[in-house]
């Protein structure tokens, strides 16, 4: 999903909390630290020098610990919080320059928001909650209720229309929150720690649902979280905030494999890599590609190269199976040296796909005697995943980390 159609641009955004934020701006720009400014002026620097570009149709995750300014940042997109300086441009419109009426229209049609503690209206039924955005827009009752019913069904809450939010569980309430956000058909979805208040099991269920919905709807989603696992799972791109400053932004693998500084590294340390990385990031070029058409030829090819296994591909590059020298010799002895791959019975044809999460391919990789082939949707051989490269990426960081800690102790 790497189209470079920029939908939202954040330019040089600053937010200072306090009585006279403008008066502190020179100090902030001069690079004084948050603590210095707080001590000298009593103002808190919330965000500093934020520059972001968010593409249409991607899930952009903004991650940081509490106090890093991530919730402040997301509230700038729809101006629930006014910035001290800077611009946010959505499709060429500077959100900061909208007047009250324009801003209301912008909020009604362009963006919708999902909240950490759901933000549902306790005095409205589930149905009325989902239809809330349309009600504010002045859409007819029958139209908006029909739409709300559809969205409730999409999020799996059919039959709960007449309940009140406090009769639902946390997960169900957040589904209502999600349905409400989707019901307005806004292009941009702001999700402020939307799943953080949920149990781990429900949370991962909701993440799956979001990913599934996103495949269908292709919204632009800005997702805030403090959980790197969640960020890696959902994000097409991730930005990491620390003390109101953008530390690193990039694709999940980039952040996982090349953390920009110690702060990011500390985050990345505890990540379950098996769950966060896909085969694509770890696989290598297939070393032994066998293009021969018969068993005999393949055996020759293999002996010439002095290797003992290979992935058989046909002319179009499509994967047929994996053969070992041992098996080829046996077949040749059995008088099948001239048989083509169709005639021969290729027994080893286990493959994995490049977008699979590492965790799911661990069994196959460990069971196979040789690197396991990776194919794309059309069955083309793309690469191979060996036990050693899998092991390497899974143990890597935690090993080195603990070693260095031990060294320091000594």
């Amino acid at each position, binding site marked *: 999903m790497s189209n470079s159609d920029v939908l939202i641009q954040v330019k040089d955004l600053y937010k200072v909390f306090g009585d006279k934020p403008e008066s502190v701006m020179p100090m902030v720009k001069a690079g004084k630290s948050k603590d210095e400014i707080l001590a000298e002026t009593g103002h808190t620097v919330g965000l500093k020098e934020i520059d972001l570009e968010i593409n249409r149709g991607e899930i952009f995750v903004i991650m940081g610990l509490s106090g890093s300014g991530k919730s402040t940042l997301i509230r700038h997109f*729809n101006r*629930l919080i006014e910035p001290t300086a800077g611009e946010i441009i959505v499709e060429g419109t500077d959100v900061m320059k909208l007047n009250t009426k324009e801003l*209301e*229209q*912008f*909020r*009604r*049609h362009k*963006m*919708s*928001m999902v*909240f*950490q*503690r*759901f*933000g*549902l*209206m*306790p*005095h409205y039924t589930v149905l009325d909650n989902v239809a*809330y*955005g349309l009600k*504010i*827009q002045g859409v007819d009752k029958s139209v908006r209720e029909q739409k709300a019913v559809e969205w409730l069904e999409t999020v799996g809450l059919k039959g709960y229309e007449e309940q*009140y939010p*406090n*009769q*639902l*569980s946390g997960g169900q309430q957040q589904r209502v929150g999600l349905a*409400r956000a989707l019901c*307005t058909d806004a292009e941009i979805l*702001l999700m402020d720690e939307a799943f953080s208040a949920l149990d781990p099991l429900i949370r991962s269920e909701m993440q799956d649902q979001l990913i599934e919905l996103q495949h269908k709807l292709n919204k632009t989603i800005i997702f805030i979280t403090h959980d790197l696992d969640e960020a890696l799972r959902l994000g097409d791109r991730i930005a990491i905030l620390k003390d109101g400053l953008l530390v690193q932004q990039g694709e999940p693998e980039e952040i996982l494999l090349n953390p920009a500084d110690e702060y990011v590294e500390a985050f990345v340390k505890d990540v379950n890599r098996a769950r966060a990385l896909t085969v694509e990031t770890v696989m290598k070029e297939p070393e032994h590609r066998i293009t021969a058409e018969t068993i005999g030829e393949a055996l020759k090819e293999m002996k010439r190269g002095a290797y003992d296994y290979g992935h058989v591909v046909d002319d179009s590059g499509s994967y047929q199976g994996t053969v070992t020298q041992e098996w080829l010799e046996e077949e040749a002895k059995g008088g099948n040296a001239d048989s083509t791959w169709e005639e021969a019975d290729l027994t080893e044809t286990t493959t994995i796909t490049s977008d699979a999460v590492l965790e799911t391919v661990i069994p196959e990789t460990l069971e196979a005697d040789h690197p396991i082939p990776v194919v794309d949707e059309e069955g083309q051989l793309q690469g191979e995943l060996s036990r050693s490269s899998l092991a390497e990426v899974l143990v890597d960081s935690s090993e080195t980390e603990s070693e260095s800690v031990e060294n320091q102790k000594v």
Partner: protein
Amino acid sequence: MAEKSWLTDIPEMDRSSLLQLRKTMDGAYRDFSREYGDSIEAFFDPLLTFLIWFEKLLLNSPWWLVLGVIAGLAYAASRSAKLTIGVAVSLVVVGYFGMWDDTMRTMSIITVCTLISIVLGIPIGIAMARSNRVQSTVTPMLDIMQTMPAFVYLIPVVMLLGIGRIPGVIAVVIYAIPPVIRLTNLGIRLVDKEVLEAATAYGANPRQRLLGVQLPLAMPTIMAGINQTIMMALAMVVIASMIGVKGLGQPVLKSITNQYFTIGLLNGLAIVVLAIIFDRVSQAYGKRTQAHLGGGHE
């Protein structure tokens, strides 16, 4: 010790200046009431007409009709047969002891005072919730209204409007309005920030936020305020009777001066009966309509 020292005695204004001050203020106020008394009275005329009409309505209708209407209202508000029967029986008992007319008079003035308090109080409460500056100006005024002895502000009201129903209503409203203002303000300020933020994020304008979110969610608190206002209005009945407001207060006042223990007690109990009816019915109404806000899953 002929000389007074500021060490032993508090420095005092000398008598003549104090007298002067009093004269000036009294004079100014007297002039003011002479100048504007009539027009202010005229301003309140529609209210007076309504008061008299409402009182006559309650007094002239047959007792069983009034009783039926009150019981019907109680049932509509509370949906509780037990409470409705309780209301009817206690009113019959009050009537049986010969206090029906006075009870109706008191009920009419309390109803009107409560309505005025709500109509004035809720908008003031909303204004307070919107602006900290309004809140810090109004709060001390409410403090004065609640702590200043009622007799003291009866004086200017009587000077201005004489005795009768209107000054009575004004005195009762001044005394009874603070709770509804305070609790409207409080209720709106306590509305969950995230719910309000959600409304804003979906593009709700201030009116949609107020009517759709803030007031409905503040309603339990506002209802508590209205309830308090009714109770305080009832507490003023005796004092208001000193400036000519007819009703259950006058027999009580009479029995204080003449030491009629039983009459005082009976009329006092009738006030209690009214208070309990108003209280239970309004509470039950509040609970019933806000049922989905409390309890539940959580």
